[in-house]
């Protein structure tokens, strides 16, 4: 199995442990990921906030590059995924933006490329049965709040990710890894990442609600699929709260007992080591 891959800017910076765990897991599963050649930033929140067409053109250039290969495009970060899906919709047959967008980027959209979130690829293309077969170290006792956030699921007409109020695919994955998915109500609440640097107090309120809700429901950690959600959850929670946020591939890699995990854990702002030690999942 082979996929095209859009790493996104955080893959080499704040989400480096996501990147490391993705490649460890995919190597172990024998599924290859090949980076889109010379990819550019998706524009994140900034581009579409200042100029709508720029916010579509930046991801569209990556679509232009990716459609050259006959492979499904897998996107690890929820923010990038959403931007690429919005551009895909603007390029779809019948869209009044298509021609303008093609002119700006300088390409002809062929409508053949499939764009999927990396978690969707793991859960549905590789499949939970194949993952279950590779679990050698079940995450017994690990109580996990699956945090979907906004960009991964909303708007479902754009993302194609199904139930946007109560998604369960991450919960299913945690169950398959032998962990305990926690039933909680803030799983799709926004963490406010766009305002993290300019309105820290607002974001601390939002994070306090999300973390409080997860802890009250009995969770001792989060799992997520977005570089911005993860850093926001760990960095903006009240000091001493100590609820780590894992990337989903870190937990898959832990359950598969892959090497190099200490390097992933060392990158976290909230270290998960004590929690994992208490469950016999780290030494």
């Amino acid at each position, binding site marked *: 199995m082979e996929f095209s891959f859009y790493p996104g800017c955080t893959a080499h910076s704040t989400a480096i442990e996501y990147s490391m765990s993705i490649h460890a897991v995919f190597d172990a599963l024998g599924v290859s990921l090949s980076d889109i050649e010379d990819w550019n930033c998706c524009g994140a929140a900034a581009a579409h906030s200042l100029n709508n067409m*720029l916010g579509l053109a930046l991801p569209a250039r990556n679509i232009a590059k990716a459609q050259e290969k006959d492979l499904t495009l897998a996107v690890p970060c929820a923010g990038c995924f959403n931007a690429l899906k919005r551009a895909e919709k603007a390029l779809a047959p019948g869209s009044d933006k298509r021609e303008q967008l093609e002119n700006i980027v300088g390409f002809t959209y062929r409508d053949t490329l499939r764009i999927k979130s990396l978690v969707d690829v793991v859960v549905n293309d590789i499949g939970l049965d194949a993952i279950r077969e590779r679990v050698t170290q079940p995450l017994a006792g690990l109580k996990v709040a699956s945090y979907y956030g906004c960009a991964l699921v909303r*708007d479902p007409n754009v993302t194609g990710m199904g139930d946007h109020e109560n998604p369960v695919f991450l919960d299913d994955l945690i169950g398959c890894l032998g962990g305990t998915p926690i039933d909680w109500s803030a799983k799709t609440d926004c963490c406010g990442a766009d305002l993290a640097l300019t309105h820290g107090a*607002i974001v601390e309120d939002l994070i306090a609600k999300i973390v409080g809700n997860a802890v009250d429901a009995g969770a001792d950690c989060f799992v997520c699929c977005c570089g911005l959600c993860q850093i926001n959850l760990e960095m903006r929670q009240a000091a001493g709260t100590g609820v780590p946020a894992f990337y989903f591939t870190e937990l898959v890699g832990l359950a598969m007992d892959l090497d190099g995990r200490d390097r992933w854990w060392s990158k976290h702002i909230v270290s998960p080591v004590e929690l994992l030690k208490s469950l016999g999942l780290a030494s």
Partner: protein
Amino acid sequence: MKRDKEFLREVERRSGQDLQSCYQCGKCSAGCPVSPYKDFKPNRIIRMIQYGQKEEVLKSHAIWLCVSCMTCGVRCPNDIDIAAIMDTLREMAVEAGYSYDAERNVVILHEEFVRSIRIWGRVHEATMLGLYKLRSLDLFTDLIPGIKLMLKMKIPFIPTLIKGAGEVRGMFKKTYDRKQ
């Protein structure tokens, strides 16, 4: 209050949304995570557009505090994509020269973010944040978390220049530069 009768039509045309179908149920504002911090909640913004309160809307804090989480739109009984309207309003605020009126720092951060993409093709956090700090003069906020991230080697010092940076700059010229 000055009423701009064209405002509603322009927002509808540019966002592709039917604002007249809003019957003020308030579901958008109930679900909006940043409603408590806004000067005008989403349902009120819609009403203000219908009334033609262009200047009040385009100079509001609300349009820049919107985090584009799309909770409003997916819950709207009339399928109004309110996040798309917010994108349109922000773009119109920039064009009207109001970008620094309400939320100067939010806009400066967006500007530095896209400047980084324009130069390198990808975002380079260290220089982008440095320029944001210098322009906003908000020098000390998040200094300690920033240092923590650097100590964990999560903020690369050397930027990556993509081969197609010229293509990316060309896209900026056809979009961003025309509307400023």
